[in-house]
């Protein structure tokens, strides 16, 4: 067990855990932030996507000991993020979600995409969202919502 100082959604958090614990489980179980989801644990689905140092990251394979000083941003902070809020609203108005379980990760990937590429093409979308699995198959509407958010932000 070791104590780590984290910055999560602009707040300082101390956690005492096994250093190999993935960031995902620290968020979910120690910090009680269950918006970030577990889908596969092997970086194959993107349900656990958070931003670490501004980069979309699969938190299920990132040991807490490797987070370091980098700030962590999760889905719980998106409603207060300028781009995050627009993306969430686009998701709602396009009626994207079905079961919803993948959507925290989808939105975190989409926000990262729009931060880097304000006017994404279909190809940009496919590249950035290509690792986010949705078993319900909401991809068509995800595409529409990203484009709608980009228009809104434009």
């Amino acid at each position, binding site marked *: 067990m070791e104590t780590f100082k984290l910055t999560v959604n602009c707040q300082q958090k101390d956690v005492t855990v096994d250093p190999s614990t993935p960031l995902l489980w620290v968020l979910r179980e120690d910090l009680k932030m269950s918006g970030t989801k577990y889908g596969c644990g092997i970086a194959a689905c993107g349900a656990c996507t958070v931003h670490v140092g501004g980069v979309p990251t699969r938190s299920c394979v990132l040991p807490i000991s490797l987070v370091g000083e980098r700030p962590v941003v999760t889905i719980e902070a998106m409603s207060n993020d300028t781009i995050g809020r627009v993306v969430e609203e686009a998701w709602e108005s396009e009626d994207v979600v079905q079961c919803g379980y993948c959507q925290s990760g989808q939105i975190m990937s989409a926000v990262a995409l729009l931060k880097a590429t304000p006017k994404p093409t279909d190809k940009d979308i*496919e590249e950035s969202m290509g690792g986010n699995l949705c078993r319900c198959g909401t991809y068509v509407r995800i595409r529409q919502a990203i484009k709608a958010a980009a228009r809104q932000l434009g």
Partner: protein
Amino acid sequence: MATATTPNFLEVNRRTFLRMSGAAAGGLFLSLHLAEPGHARQTPKAQAYPPAAFIHVRSDGKIVIQVNRLEFGQGVQTALPMLLADEMDADWSQVIAELAPAADVYSDPIAGIQMVGGSGSIAHSFEQYRQLGASARAMLIAAAAAQWNVMPEQCRTEASVVYGPNSQSAKYGELAESAAKLPVPESVQLKKESELHLSGKNTRRLDSRGKCNGSQKFGLDVDLPGMKVALVAHPPVFGARVKSFNADAARAISGVRDVFEMPLVRGTGVAVVADRFWAAKQARDRLQAEWNTASVEHPDTAQLFSKYRELARTAGNIAMTRGSAASMDSIPSSKRILAEYEFPFLAHTPMEPLNTTVRFDSSGAEVWAGSQFQTFDQMAVAEVLGLKAEQVTFHTEMAGGGFGRRAVADSHVQREAATIAKRLPGIPVKLIWTREDDVQGGYYRPMFVHRVDVGIGADGMPIAWRHVIVGQSLVAGTPFAARLIKDGVDATAVEGVADTAYAIQNFYVSAHHPEINVPVLWWRSVGHTHTAFVMETLIDELAMRAKTDPIAYRLKLLSPDAKKLRACLTLLREKTASWRDSATGNRAVGVASHESFGTGVACAVEVSVENKRPKIHRAVIAVDPGFAVNPLSIESQMQGGVTFGMTQVMPKGAITLKDGRVEQRNWDGYTPPYINDAPVTVEVHIVPSSEKPTGCGEPPVPVISPAIVNALSRLTGKRYRSLPLAEI
């Protein structure tokens, strides 16, 4: 999951009536109960469970509606409240929908148990929710009329307000308490279609916001004080038992509380209980377990296929026979197609891994689970814990997909969770099946082999059809067997062939159901996952041989009473007219149509081959679900359903076994479609209809795979008869 043709497997009489369920303080509660003539039911058990009813009109004006089945993406948590609120003239912005706990009162009115399956939510509860709404409205009007000393007929309602003849008005929230003291009307008049203001209109989901901002809690997010997390090491071959295990290394992990051998539905396993997931996971990885695998059968995909192919050469138990079986023998081989199809095991892999939380103590138990079968799962927990079902409070948790995987007659996940909780009285235990447990844990769509002999007449239409289907029964040994297995044929294995809408004169279908040591389960759209593929690729091949347009060919062959498919194909033809015949160069169009669960679907896809894989540029769907309760949700189900259906054409869309062991572990080895694999656009057209509504969760799944390979056949000239789809 029962088929559309046999929905009432528990033979519950459909007659329903309303009964008052107590004027509780704080508003109007209203319940609808089933009446079984001849078996007078006692006071509804539901009253023992909070919340006691379907509708709670709170004095603050909020209207809380209990949804009698699981929401796991299909949109029922929005659609059923729409029906109710519409009849009630409730202010939609004040409606809150909750997932009802397990209780008799929430049974599916047709199935007789509380469940989601067979695309039956809307089909079965359409009238029920409308009656509830209409009754609540009548009671609220009666309360207002009494207060104003006017006749109820003089009042009207709109957006949760009753208006009287002399410009009186009262909000539902204000009337709720007095309305609750009035008798429930014996019968109510439902609105005419033209009077509906919510149903039939595009309505956004009620559960979007929480699912977009991370606040929606799913079963896996259940967090209780003092809760422990449990993982189970399952046998490497189904049904094997633990020979011995060394838990020293596992116990050495900080936070591990208990490691013990436990019985499973099949064989035995080793449970690891820890404070946190990561400790439990590390401990399970370090367990040294030896398994006694010698006494169980070791299924092997390659061997099974050769065995199935052999079986398919002989006739099985007869599923359907029409005309003369011998008519085939007089047709020359030049006028025959002999086709053999192979389908692998498929895992559902819903996005949210399987899980269940149980807390057990001397007075009873509490369960939190995303369940498609609350009735069975509650009974199973009670049985494991030595309790009565009513001592088990069963909370229905929002589920991250299911596709059939949470509708398991043996309740194996809930049994495991209860077995572990029993050892730790007073402590809530959350059992998690990791993705590896899920991919390797069985309960797959069974493997199938079809062998079909088609005889073609002078006009290019099929005149004789001999069809043998080989695959495990889904329902053998379950409570569904009595209703779904007839004369040795499991209806879920032959649906979509035996009841085909194509009018084929001499038609003979039989089935073999080998018993194999692999647990199997319904996978979204059940038998239609394979039967539609066989029928729709063969019909397309016949159309090509006859040099006839695939839509025209189907319309010609459909029986006159296949109204929905006719309507879908006609609409599809109209909506694709501008481009369907002009696909050029490296693109081709494939068509398929199929009716399942009472809903007709026709699909056209425009496909090219890129990197040896089909690229789907667009898909167009025409669907006939009867009256479309929420067209927006139907559109989503069609879009999502075709993507889900594509799982089986993905290069890694198969579960295979070698010497008893599953060869895939996670989504790296069993890989469903991602955004790059899915169609870029899916355009959905709904046939206008006032017929009774039918379900939309499953019907889009069967059409997509045949439509894709039909397009590929047009591009390459080859036929594709085995899934998953190898390199093109």
